[in-house]
C-alpha cells in the first residue's frame, strides 16, 4: 500500500499573527504541523502498519518547513517530499495541481490523506481539488476509517451529531478531522530516526506548471478582541434576572 499524506506547515495556533505590509505576515513565529494533518498522518501510518507499504509525506512550503517535516517524520512516515515555493499564499487550485503532479510522478498512490482544512488559510477545498486532479473520489470531515479490499467504509460528520456512512473505492482522498484517531507522541528513538529519513527537495520551477493564481490575497486585517466584560453583580438570582433583561431589552438577542 502506498499512502501519501499532504501536510501543511502553519503558524502555531496560539501565536499572535503580525501583519507585515498589508498582505504578508511575520514568519518568525513558531510553526507547527497544521492540526488536522496530525490525524491524517496517524491514520496513514496505522493503515500501513496494518497492511504494509510506505507512507510518504508531501509538503508545499518555503524551506523553513524542514523542521516541521522532521517533526512529522518522527510520527511514522517513511520519507518526505518538500516542494519549495517562494510565496506565502498559494491558492487551493494551484496547490492541488502541484500536489497531484508530485504524487503522480512519485506514485501511483493507493490512498491520500490530508487534514480537512489548513489552519492558516482555512480554504476547506484542497482535498477535493486534489481528488479531481487525480480522478479519485474524495470524502472529508472523516471521523472513522475502516479499510477493506479495494475500498473503505468511512464515517463523515455532517453536523448536529449526525454522521454519513460512506463506501469509497481506492484510490481515494481522505480528509481527516478530530475524532478519527489519537495521534501518537513521538518517542526519542523516533525523533532520532526521523533525522535520517529521506527528504526529497523539489523546486516548484522544475515542475514547469503554469499557475492560475485565481484567488489572490488583497490584504489582511487583524481582528480586534472585545474589551473587558461588564460584570453583572448581586446574588445569583439578581444577576441572572439582570442578564436576561439586558439580553432581551438592550442587546435584543432573545425573543
Amino acid at each position, binding site marked *: 500500500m502506498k499512502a501519501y499524506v499532504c501536510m501543511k506547515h502553519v503558524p502555531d495556533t496560539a501565536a499572535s499573527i503580525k501583519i507585515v505590509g498589508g498582505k504578508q505576515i511575520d514568519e518568525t513565529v513558531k510553526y507547527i504541523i497544521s492540526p488536522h494533518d496530525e490525524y491524517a498522518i496517524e491514520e496513514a501510518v496505522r493503515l500501513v502498519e496494518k497492511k504494509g507499504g510506505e507512507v510518504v509525506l508531501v509538503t508545499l512550503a518555503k524551506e523553513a518547513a524542514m523542521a516541521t517535516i522532521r517533526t512529522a517524520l518522527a510520527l511514522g512516515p517513511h520519507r518526505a517530499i518538500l516542494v519549495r515555493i517562494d510565496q506565502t499564499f498559494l491558492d487551493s487550485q494551484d496547490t492541488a495541481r502541484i500536489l497531484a503532479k508530485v504524487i503522480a510522478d512519485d506514485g501511483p498512490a493507493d490512498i491520500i490523506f490530508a487534514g480537512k482544512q489548513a489552519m492558516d488559510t482555512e480554504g476547506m477545498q484542497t482535498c477535493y481539488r486534489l481528488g479531481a486532479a487525480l480522478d479519485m473520489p474524495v470524502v472529508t470531515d472523516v471521523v472513522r476509517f475502516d479499510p477493506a479490499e479495494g475500498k473503505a467504509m468511512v464515517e463523515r460528520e455532517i453536523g448536529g451529531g*449526525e454522521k454519513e456512512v*460512506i463506501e469509497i473505492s481506492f484510490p481515494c482522498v481522505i480528509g481527516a478531522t478530530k475524532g478519527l484517531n489519537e495521534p501518537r507522541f513521538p518517542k526519542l528513538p523516533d525523533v532520532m530516526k526521523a533525522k535520517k529519513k529521506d527528504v526529497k527537495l523539489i523546486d516548484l520551477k522544475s515542475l514547469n506548471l503554469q499557475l492560475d493564481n485565481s*484567488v489572490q490575497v488583497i490584504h489582511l486585517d487583524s481582528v480586534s478582541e472585545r474589551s473587558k466584560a461588564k460584570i453583572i453583580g448581586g446574588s445569583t438570582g439578581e444577576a441572572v434576572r439582570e442578564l436576561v433583561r439586558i439580553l432581551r431589552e438592550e442587546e435584543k438577542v432573545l425573543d
Partner: protein
Amino acid sequence: MANIGVLIETDSTGVKIANYGVMTAAQGEGHQIIAFVMGIAATACTEILGRYGATQVIELSSQGENLAKSPDLQAGLIIDAVKEYHIDFLFGLCSSKGKDIMARVAAQTGAPLAQDCLSVDVAARTVVKPFFSGRTTATLQLNGSLVLCTIRPNAIEEKEAPVTAGAAVFSSARSNDGRLVIKEVKKNPSGRVDISEANIIITGGRPLGSADNFQILGKCADTLGGAVGASRVAVDLGYASHSMQVGQTGKTVSPRLYVACGLSGSVQHFAGMKTAKVIVAINNDKDAPIFQKCDYGIIGDLFEVVPALTEALAKR
C-alpha cells in the same frame, strides 16, 4: 447585470433559516438571483425565497438517480444548471453539507471558491473571510468567469428584498460512477440544531465534570431553542461528543448569543466563536481570562447560575 445562483439547503422543515443570510449576501442592484433546491419542490420554496430576492426557484432533479446517495452527482447537476442559467457567481451556505458540495463543484469546474465568507462584494468579486483561525481576516480577489463562495451561517444579518419568484424544474442526465456512495445517515438522538447553524449556544468546559452534568446546559439550551457546545478539554475528557466542540479543532460558530460556562477563554476557543454577536461568560474565577474579552460576565458557580438562568428564561 449579474446572474447569481444560490444553492439553498433544506431539511424536513423546508428552507433552513440559515439560508436567509446567504440570500441577503447575494442581493444587489441589477442582480438576477436564481435559487437552486434539491429534494423539495420549487413551488414549496417560492414564497420564502422570493421574499429574499429570488426571481426564480429551480428544483434540480436527477432523472431517476438517487441524489441523496451521491454528493458528486449533486455537484454534477449543479454544474449543469450553472451552465444552463449562465450563472457567474454561485453562493452557498458554509455548513457541513454546503461546504462539501460547493467544494465538489469548484473542484470539478476549476472555479475559484472562498469558503466561510463574512462578506462579499459581487461587483468587485472580492470576499472577506477568516485566516489564521480567526486571528485575521483576509480580503480575497476571485478571478474567473464563474466564482463561488460559501457564507458563514449567521454572519450576515438577513434583509428582505421581496419579488415574485417563478418555479421550474431542471434535470440533466448524469449517473453515479459508484466510487463514493452514502450508505446510511446516522441520526442524532438529541434533535437539537447543529451548533454551526444555531442562533444561541451554551457551551461547557472542564468544570462540568461529567457527561451527565452537561444536561444542565441541555435544559438551558432547550429553553432557548439553542444548541449545546463544548470546549476541547471537555470533549477530550469524554464529557461531550466532538460534534459539539467549538474552537480551532472543532466548529466555528457565529450565533446571536454565546454563553460560555466554566471556560477559561483560550485563543483556540475564541477562534471558533469570536464572531458571535454577544458573548456571556459564567465562571467562578473572577480572574479567568475570558472576562477580559467578552461582553457580559457573571462570577459564580455554574451549577447554581445555569439552572437559575434556565428558570429566569422560562418565565417570560
